[in-house]
């Protein structure tokens, strides 16, 4: 099993994702350069947070044209696991691998703080190790995390159980009080219909050790590991 963390010009949470997987979870992990079309036989790809191409034009809008994204698209089409965190999520939206788009935060400011998100679905390789309804404390750090989509898409997301995480209050209520950026339906993270590509604005890689005030992010990476182990057994 091997994770690949893509490095775009301006990625700055690449080392954090690498640390979470390699050092904390002790799983093999490699960096993949944005100009490479070779994914180094990775079993799961992480598009990390940061400011790829300085967020110029629109968040993620330039990075989606990187050579590596062609391979990521192929990898995803073949069922490979792809997780986009923050800027990675924005890139997946721009690439059309996930539906919807990002707008500026409702308050028009960058926000960095711990928020609460509720696990809405455990039927995904990104949440299978979590409990349904589990409340995770995970930090956000973004200016453009106000997820939006048209009504039809929202209906589709809800119907197909693609909303994986919603912002809530510490007590678990998904009302506006818990929503830091004004996202539609308090959405914090979604997956595609095939459930192998997911994106979320909060940073699970920043919540993997108690000394960092939370290790609730581990459950997302553990889910991916479990899913990969399960898949390996199934094909064995």
């Amino acid at each position, binding site marked *: 099993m091997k994770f690949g963390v893509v490095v775009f010009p301006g990625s700055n949470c690449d080392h954090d994702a690498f640390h979470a997987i390699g050092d904390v979870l002790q799983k093999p992990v490699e960096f993949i350069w944005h100009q490479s079309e070779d994914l180094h036989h990775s079993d799961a790809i992480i598009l990390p947070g940061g*400011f790829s191409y300085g967020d110029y034009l629109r968040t993620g809008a330039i990075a989606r044209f990187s050579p590596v994204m062609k391979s990521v698209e192929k990898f995803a089409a073949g069922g490979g696991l792809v997780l986009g965190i923050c800027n990675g999520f924005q890139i997946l939206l721009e690439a059309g691998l996930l539906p919807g788009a990002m707008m500026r935060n409702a308050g028009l400011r*960058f926000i960095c703080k711990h928020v609460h998100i509720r696990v809405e679905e455990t039927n995904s390789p990104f949440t299978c190790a979590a409990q349904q309804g589990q409340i995770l404390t995970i930090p956000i750090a973004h200016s453009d995390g106000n997820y939006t989509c048209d009504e039809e898409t929202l209906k589709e997301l809800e119907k197909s159980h693609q909303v994986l995480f919603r912002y809530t209050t510490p007590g678990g209520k998904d009302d506006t009080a818990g929503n830091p950026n004004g996202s539609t339906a308090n959405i914090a993270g979604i997956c595609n219909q095939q459930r192998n590509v997911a994106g979320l604005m909060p940073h699970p890689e920043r919540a993997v050790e108690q000394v960092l005030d939370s290790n609730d992010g581990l459950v997302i990476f553990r889910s991916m590991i479990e899913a990969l182990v399960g898949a390996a057994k199934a094909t064995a």
Partner: protein
Amino acid sequence: MATAQTEIKVTPEIAAEHGVTREEYARIQKILGGDPNITELGIFSVMWSEHCSYKSSKVHLKRLPTRGKLVVQGPGENAGVVDIGDGLVAAFKIESHNHPSYVEPFQGATTGVGGILRDIFTMGARPIAVLDSLRFGEIAPSKNTTEEEAARNRRILDGVVRGVGSYGNCFGVPTVGGEVGFEPCYSQNPLVNALALGIARKEEIFLAKAKGIGNPVIYVGAKTGRDGIHGASLLASAEFTEESQQKRPNVQVGDPFMEKLLLEACLEAMKTGAVVAIQDMGAAGLTCSTCEMASRGGTGIEIDLARVPQRETGMTPYEIMLSESQERMLLVAEKGREQEVLAVFKKWGLDATVVGDVTDGGLLVVKDHGKVAAQIPAHPLAEEGPVYNRKIAELAPRKESEKDWFVFAAERTDLTANFKKLLAAPAIASKKWITEQYDSMVRTNTLAGPGASDAAVVRIKETKRALALATDGNGRWCQLNPKVGAMHAVAEAARNVAASGARPIAATNCLNFGSPEKPEVMWQFSQAIDGVGEACVALGTPITGGNVSFYNETLGRSIYPTPVIGILGILEDATKVLKVAFRNDGDVILLLDGAGGEEAGLKPSATAQEFSSSEYSKTIGGIVAGEPPAIDLAAEKRLIDCLVALANAGTVQSAHDLSDGGLAVSLAESCFAAGGLGAEIQIDEKASAEYALFGERGARSIVSAAPTKVAAVLESARQYGVRARAIGKVTKDNALRIEYNGQAAVAAPIPVLKDVWAHSLERNLKIQ
């Protein structure tokens, strides 16, 4: 074609327009053996500007202690470097960007952060933390501030905060701490001081010495444009007038994305082993980097401007040499290995071009398409600029008497209402609205971010250690007594570091003052230097670098003298970081006092004089007078050693020093941070309740400990000569109750107090 401007005949009048005095001009003639051409004059004018040459401060800066056994590199390089063990070193420095931040708050702040980050990675160190020390005018109207001024101050604050955030967030360095202060004197002259910290392996530190005759000089990073010409010399080296807004084009423009690429490329290029020296192009751009590298290396440098990547056409040598376009570096590579270096920059999509080479003879030769545009001996240019021992005149002593001082409330007054006002004062209120706009967590090393501990604490993943950093500076106190005020700045920063559990080891300073041409300002400066020096010696924290910012005045009015001190500490065991939050119901709260005595036996008039300089006196009484609290450096040292020992022994659950707003504010903040806990306090003293609860005398801290550990805490305190006494306990009823001599002095539910404290800033900023 690019030489049109070089034909301008230089006269002493043109020199004067460049801020070059007649004496300085004569000196230039002597060095060159004749008149300079316009390009040469431009080069001299920026190198000899106050900002670059330190001509007014040099004679005083020599008095600062700069040596210590952990100091690897003291002042004079791009940043100070200290040994932090395990083969690692920390590079850190604080720098001001005050003037640009007034003229254009957003870009001024971004380029301030960008500049200090380059200073760090130029040394081969990867930046791991940024702190910002900010000062603004009042953001709400008052007797000193009109609504119009307050509105402008709010706009400046908003722009600066967005600027600081925008640069650090994109670059990927956590902004972990700092402080924000408000005084009317900063209304037209905000202070934006940015501190950056980086780490490197000891043997991989890079210096900016151009060595090896024939080695290629390589220009890397952003292209050169016409932005920022004379930013350092004309913006930072003169006071503000009504025309200053017209200097907006002199402010540089930052691009954090470019800087992130430059960081990664520079660190990767350094790893090739083919880089001999490197310096960033900050103030005075290409001029400063070429002549300083040559001067330090005892060599010369020859470059041809035709090879410099340019953003626009038709730039003259004058403009290219003086441009302060951001995100550029100059490096010297080993001859024959330049391709290895160039390849790294190509990989990161950056311009990298050989623009010249290192020469012998010590001349800086600037050519333009092969034709000499400027030719100046590098060493005299960089190091033999004018040095002024400017006139010093002590300020006339203030004629104050008891009637000018704060009058303490009658005994048994309920002080709760005043306490709420104090908690809402911008200096004391929560800065969360600001700090949440900064990414404080990227790189996942932040063990204590903004407000969590008295110092910001970042771990070093490959070791068991962590580094702690705090910045402090009380301009009001320095205005009342520059020497004592400066000593307090050092003491408070060191105390804050110790309250996080870390041992303070080294300091950096940013000295913000008015015009050096005013003898009273030079007196304040000289006094402050003495204070900083004395305190740094006493606390064992040598100054490793920093910067001086003069001319902080608008329309002839100086700011308060504001030395800002950054102190770095080492926490041997990262798991032992102390935070301000109370932890458990029933824990005992102890007051530690390094001075040992009860109110040091002060007479009532002396306490009133001291108290008149406090935040409480300013906020509640509208009085700013008297003297800062007397400082006892030995007491500070005892408290620092005691706090470090307590953290190491693991006997305390929390620690928080006493500073702005005194004991009551520290207690409240420890409750706020805990969430759901309160405190019950009993104090019996002779002084007035206000003095005991809100006084700001130094060398004090509160700690909390489990009842079973109290004896151990008392024993540690005794060993270090620190007076410790239990003053109450942590409760679960979520209220703060302080009894003074048996009477309720402050009593309120924590949620009520917290609401006032937590939201005051947004309310003042009128942001919903």
